[in-house]
């Protein structure tokens, strides 16, 4: 299936997943067996789509989200601004918009997804939106939104999922008054249940963001070609001169569909990421629909890129089986200024597992952890702070959960590392000078043998002679001894040392 020993790989789509796949493939192919041609619809170099909401929030400039150039310039050709139009699977050729033909032995579809545009605008010509209305999927979208915020007085975000909340926080951060309109009963209803969503809503409200849940948008109100608001079901109109549509995404499947490949919501692929209809055609990233379902998260797409690169480069004899999806790629964390929401794995009650929750509505906190078979298999965190980071580490790596899963809900208070405040309370075995292994008992012992100052103690125990950090502590103990044992005259220094008596180390 290849010319000589070379395998021609055509990748359609030069986004985060397509670019990562090309790098992964060439990295695993030091012998240069594979040649890749990448068709990218956008004129730009690939960029970090995940960070578009940060651009909107004004926390990143565009230059900071451009992805690494491929390090494999000799074996990889990138064709930006090249739209794949048809696939001739019989001939093994992709035709582009300019009429060029790209032969392949292996075809990888990484066409991604586009923003789902809700039916608010009547009939549209060429997918055009009225001025003031924007989706957020591309760099151009982000630039336009940023430009619009300069004059915006009132923004409405349609869709209270992860991206919607990130955009709302970002706009609020820029000082634009925002309302989030969400048709479902809960914000982020793919990830959060009622109580968790309530905690998130409370947090958004405190950031000055209005939240309308269970509110269906009927249509955009447009005047003179410009958006002036949205009309909700029931007739209420929310005024807005900036309308951001974050109502989910739709996998880009047109090309695959025209080529006669199996398509459901996305391009159907098996565990091996190949189309059941054609073993030479693979799909990865947001356009794909693997058996476990597409999450729309970058971690899943990158995992697929890595697995496909492994599949193509390693001879099947060297593998036990097809590399399976990595666990823990479904962690969702909202990147909102002032909003702390993390969700992963399963949520809700579970047979055979345990679910513990911490509900702290007044504190803006809600944490749920699901444990089964001694491991964290799901967690939902709102306002959880560092606990969320700990849970992600435990969930993604499958480390043993505590016997009592409730221990996962708060960070254990760190034990006291310094000796007890009062020398009276300090146990004799407490190490005072770590550098020289000197305990409180040693210092008391040398007081009994006549030491009366820090210098005396240092001379006979070496305490304070390393890093010097224990000087105050030794001083405190000497003062305490002086107070509690004031009249005792200093005995004559012992002439010979005993086993317990710390004396200078000598070689005899």
């Amino acid at each position, binding site marked *: 299936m290849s010319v000589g020993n070379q395998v021609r790989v055509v990748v359609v789509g030069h986004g985060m997943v397509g670019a990562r796949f090309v790098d992964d493939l060439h990295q695993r192919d030091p012998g240069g067996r594979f040649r890749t041609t990448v068709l990218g619809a956008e004129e730009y170099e690939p960029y970090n789509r995940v960070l578009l909401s940060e651009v909107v929030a004004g926390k990143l400039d565009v230059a900071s989200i451009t992805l690494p150039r491929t390090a494999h310039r000799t074996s990889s050709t990138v064709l930006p601004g090249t739209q794949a139009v048809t696939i001739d699977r019989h001939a093994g050729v992709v035709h582009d918009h300019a009429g060029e033909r790209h032969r392949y032995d292996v075809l990888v579809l990484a066409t991604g997804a586009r923003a789902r545009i809700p039916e608010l605008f009547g009939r549209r010509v060429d997918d055009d939106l009225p001025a003031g209305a924007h989706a957020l999927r591309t760099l151009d979208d982000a630039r336009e939104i940023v430009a619009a915020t300069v004059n915006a007085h009132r923004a409405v975000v349609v869709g209270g999922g992860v991206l919607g909340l990130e955009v709302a926080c970002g706009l609020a951060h820029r000082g634009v008054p925002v309302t989030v309109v969400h048709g479902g009963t809960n914000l982020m209803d793919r990830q959060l249940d009622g109580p968790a969503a309530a905690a998130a809503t409370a947090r958004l409200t405190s950031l000055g963001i209005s939240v309308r849940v269970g509110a269906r948008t009927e249509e955009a109100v447009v005047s003179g070609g410009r958006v002036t608001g949205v009309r909700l079901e029931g007739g209420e109109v929310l005024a807005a001169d900036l309308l951001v549509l974050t109502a989910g995404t739709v996998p880009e499947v047109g090309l695959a569909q025209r080529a006669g490949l199996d398509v459901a919501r996305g391009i159907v692929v098996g565990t091996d990421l190949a189309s059941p209809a054609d073993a030479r055609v693979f799909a990865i990233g947001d356009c794909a629909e693997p058996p476990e379902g597409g999450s729309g998260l970058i971690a899943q797409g990158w995992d697929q890129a890595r697995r496909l690169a492994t599949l193509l480069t390693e001879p099947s004899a060297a593998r036990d089986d097809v590399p399976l999806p990595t666990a823990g790629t479904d962690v969702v964390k909202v*990147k909102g200024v002032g909003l702390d929401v993390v969700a992963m794995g399963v949520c809700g009650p579970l047979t055979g597992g345990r679910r513990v929750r911490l509900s702290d509505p007044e504190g803006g906190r809600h944490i749920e952890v699901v444990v089964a078979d001694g491991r964290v298999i799901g967690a939902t965190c709102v306002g959880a702070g560092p606990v969320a980071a700990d849970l992600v580490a435990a969930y993604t790596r499958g480390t043993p959960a505590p016997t009592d899963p409730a221990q996962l809900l708060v960070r254990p208070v760190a034990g006291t590392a310094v000796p007890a405040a009062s020398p009276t309370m300090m146990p004799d075995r407490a190490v005072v000078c770590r550098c020289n292994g000197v305990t409180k008992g040693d210092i008391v012992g040398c007081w009994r043998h006549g030491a009366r100052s820090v210098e005396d103690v240092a001379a006979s125990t070496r305490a304070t*002679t390393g*890093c010097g950090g224990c000087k105050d502590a030794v001083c405190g103990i000497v003062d305490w001894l002086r107070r509690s044992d004031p009249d005792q005259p200093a005995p004559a220094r012992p002439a010979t040392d005993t086993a317990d008596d710390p004396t200078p180390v000598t*070689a005899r």
Partner: protein
Amino acid sequence: MTRLAAVTTEGAATHCPYCALQCAQTLRNSDEGAVTAAGRDFPTNKGGMCQKGWTSPTLLRATDRLTTPLLHGEPVSWDTALSFVATRLAALRASHGPESVAVFGGGGLTNEKAYALGKFARTVLATPNIDYNGRFCMASAAAGANRTLGLDRGLPFPLTDLGGAQAVLLLGSNLAETMPPSVQHLAGVRATGGLIVVDPRRSATADLTADDGGLHVQPVPGTDLALLLGLAHIVLAEGFADVAYLDERTTGLDDIRRSVALWWPERTEQVTGVPVATLRRAAFLLANASPSRGGSGAYILTGRGVEQSTQGTDTVTAAINLALLLGLPGRVGSGYGAITGQGNGQGGREHGQKADQLPGYRSIEDDAARAHVADVWGVDPADLPRTGLPAIELLRSLGTPGGPKALLVHGSNVLVSAPDADRVRERLASLDLLVVCDFLPSETALLADVVLPVTQWAEEEGTMTSLEGRVIRRRRALPPPPGVRSELEILADLAARLGSTVRFDTSPAVVFDELARASAGGRADYSGLSHARLDAEPDLFWPVPAGPTPHPGTPRMFLDRFWTPDGRARLVPVDHRGPSDDLRRDAPLFLITGRVLAHYQSGAQTRRVPELVRSAPTPFVELHPLLADRLGIDEGDLVQLDTERGRGVVRARLTDALRPDTVFMPFHWAGTGSANRLTTDATDPISGMPEFKVCAVDVQRWHGPVEVLEDQSLLFAEEVLA
């Protein structure tokens, strides 16, 4: 009774035998006629010493000090031993070629001995196969600094410079235990709240951040590289980068900007387990301390915790990238540095013990370097071998078909200090000839066919190069016991017995002069130095080239230019891959390894000092109380640890200083408590440094017999205490 011979009433001014801080100490005769050690005022230790330094004279009276050569365990004369070694080496070389003999050196050897050993291997043995235990310590830091700054000197600035810093990012170093007196230099930064310690464990060093001293960052083991990429992302995103400096003094900014675009804070949190808020705080502390933002200076320092990794070179590179983004290296009061571990870890890597290097930090593949060194040695450059096997590959190949059949070990206890120790034992046992030079019967020496007793620190003259590139004098305080010889004498004797005409001097001062000539023009140029000059001037940092007027030395490097061909530092993009032996269902915990204050390296010396044994008597494993509870383990219980390499059994210590997904073991012991029977020998692809610091482990309560602990190492400890 050991009386000091060459010691005046002022005592012998020398330096501690152990770590790279090389605390200045004075050895004196006490009133009772014994040798005592006291701290001596010096810029690095400011008069301080830790318990190891104070008790170092105990080594001079070790009851099992080697004072006679041993052949298959039996005392023999020097002539018998050396003639046996020479005959066997000659026979092996004749039938299997010069590569069949290998040499393994140590980072504790003086510059003179390290130099002579490298010369002996390349000329007398003509073998490419020489490497040293510094491959376990400094190789990744060296590779990272060389490819970015163009030169590797552990700290390219005096240690005392840290005193004025507003922020110090310390990655994977527990210097409060490994070199305690150095903590004095962090007093200033702790007072400003700018000390940032990155360690999965709340070590003694991490504790220095308590009470508003700074910030302890506690990542998932093996994710330091991701953490650094995440910090670089924040620095660029927030506009903290020093644009003018980057423009003027570096290349590669665009590639770095793109590579760290992938490490936004939320992703970094998911990989490292470090909350976004903590990442931001660390980045802000560093940025605000940076000169371009009006701060009084910031340092980024790396240690073994991040370097002993299969991505160690990349991690060091990422640390240097971050430092460059902030405009730190090559500025007075700011910078990047690696904290060298072993006493002469710095000098040991500069003078020819490394498989790919000739004296003066020269590449053995560089023809001009070969010609220069060959001229000093009086040999034909064409006869010098090329690059040999790095340490781990060398150890793995011992006794295998085509691999070395004889090994000479100098100043290293590989059986305890190398990873995957059971395999090391197997390889050593398969050798035709194992020769160990040591002054104590280390675990490795006990396996040797021939043991040659050598001098130790207080019995010899020489030089060491400390962690800051300062060349210091080691001075003889007393004569060695009868029967003991210096390695310089042994190498000269063996060279003659093997029929070599290459000259091997035995006087350290003369050997140093030759080393200085060999290093002339190299990166680590010592040609302007001599023992006499060093006796008069204790503040000389290399390079110190010879010249018509004495060169003042180079305390601070890179002030004008980096050591790259165009004088600019290189920003090199790197990415995180993760540990080689990652967690799996049947090994769901991270094992991390490290040190305790009372012991040094393999413990061959410190396990023989009663005070130190009392402070840290036996091996142990630390685990979090939540994990212990889950596993049904109580304080002091015997615990078994299983990795893909082997099993260890030690007692449990419960502490909340660790992440609950991680257990910690110090590596100073042999036997069932040997951490390195568990560690992996997977290595960094660039530096060849093994991944000591992290592997996957299963931990259970030990239900077997208690006698398992009656292994030699522990019995020995009890003997010392009794």
